[in-house]
């Protein structure tokens, strides 16, 4: 059956980035479960979807993609008229687009490496029967605090990261933020008033609630 397929795991941060986008756009799709614990992502069958052996992979008709942020950046303009607008209000304004793109790079290069490590230490390691390394947690939290200080200043000026409307830039953060809110790292978000408000806004969205089910 043609249409949209996501090959991934419902608990995976990167898979959730794509699922969020699909829910925001009210798009029908099939989630094909990839058993990470069993190493299914390293099998020949999955590698034909993503040679890097990472979830998620994606199909829309005969278009095959991987890398969650490439997938979301395909969905948002492709289905521009539908559901939530995830681009800037004037999608043709290149300066506005660049500001959104810059925020997406910040998420990918400044925020996510730290947030993912912390989610790994606090949450995913335990699923695999490993123990949290508190020294790593302390080190990564110190770096994340500095990043969130920049976010605090930004969110004092603007309601969302790329301006006054919710965009892909904010969306890309949601899965990692949701995990960290369930851990001691939560304090880094709650002790910064504007970050705290932004976190509350983006996590209460119906799509954000759907991916937790």
């Amino acid at each position, binding site marked *: 059956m043609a249409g949209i397929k996501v090959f991934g795991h419902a608990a995976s941060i990167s898979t959730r980035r794509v699922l969020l986008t699909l829910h925001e756009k009210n798009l029908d799709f099939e989630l094909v479960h990839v058993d990470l614990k069993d190493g299914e992502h390293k099998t020949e069958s999955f590698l034909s979807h993503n*040679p*890097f052996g990472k979830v998620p992979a994606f199909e829309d008709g005969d*278009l095959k*993609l*991987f*890398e969650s*942020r*490439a997938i979301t*950046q*395909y969905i948002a*303009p*492709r289905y521009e008229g539908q559901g939530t607008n995830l681009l800037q209000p004037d999608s043709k304004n*290149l*300066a506005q*687009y*660049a*500001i959104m*793109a*810059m925020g*997406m*790079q*910040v998420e*990918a*290069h*400044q925020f996510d*490496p730290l947030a993912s490590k912390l989610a790994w230490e606090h949450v995913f390691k335990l699923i695999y029967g490993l123990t949290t390394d508190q020294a790593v947690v302390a080190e990564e939290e110190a770096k994340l605090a500095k*990043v969130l200080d*920049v976010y605090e*200043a*930004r969110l004092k000026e603007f309601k969302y990261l790329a301006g006054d409307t919710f965009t892909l830039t904010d969306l890309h953060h949601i899965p990692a933020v949701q995990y960290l809110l369930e851990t001691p790292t939560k304090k880094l978000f709650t002790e910064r008033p504007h970050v705290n408000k932004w976190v509350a806004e983006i996590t209460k969205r119906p799509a954000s609630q759907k991916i937790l089910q």
Partner: protein
Amino acid sequence: MASIKVHGVPMSTATMRVLAALYEKELEFELIPVDMRAGAHKQEPFLSLNPFGQIPALQDGDLTLFESRAITEYIGDEYSEKGEKLMCPGCNKVKALTKVWLNVEGQQFDPIASKIAFERIFKGMFGMTTDPAAVQELEGKLVRVLDIYEARLSKSEFLACDCFTLADLHHLPVIHYLMGTDSKALFESRPKVCEWVKKITARPAWAKVVDLQKQ
């Protein structure tokens, strides 16, 4: 006076990424040096350009941007009619494939390759010593990525499609550094990767970026 200003240094891989895009587009710009040794990038006035305290930052009229890969994307879009094409023309599908390989460079290649460059080259400049065990571990990861590149480049002239795009350009600075070290063997031993490296590093715009380092 150029309306485009780049705040950075020619030695920095991220700055080089932006310079490459500007030269490909044949755009006038002013390169404003940032005194890294003095920590200028971690203080005002630079922090007003990039609050994360990293070079480069770009000003184009009253637009200020940071994050090299957002800057190059802006340059490619805003000046799409000038100089070389940096995105494949086409529909959502072609653009989507380009985004895939842009993300591959940023998420799969660069985290490993730039650490190798740091170990082999930049550590020495800062009076630190290369950690051979770290290099070995990193190279073990890089070869897996390059094997995937080899397979990809057997099916496609360049990474995203059959034209040179930002997805290829973004690799240039780190590859340039690694090709000056023993790590070059990893690229040279894979025929399609080797050919691709030769093609992209031979581009005239890239030669101009490298020249800036010699000044």
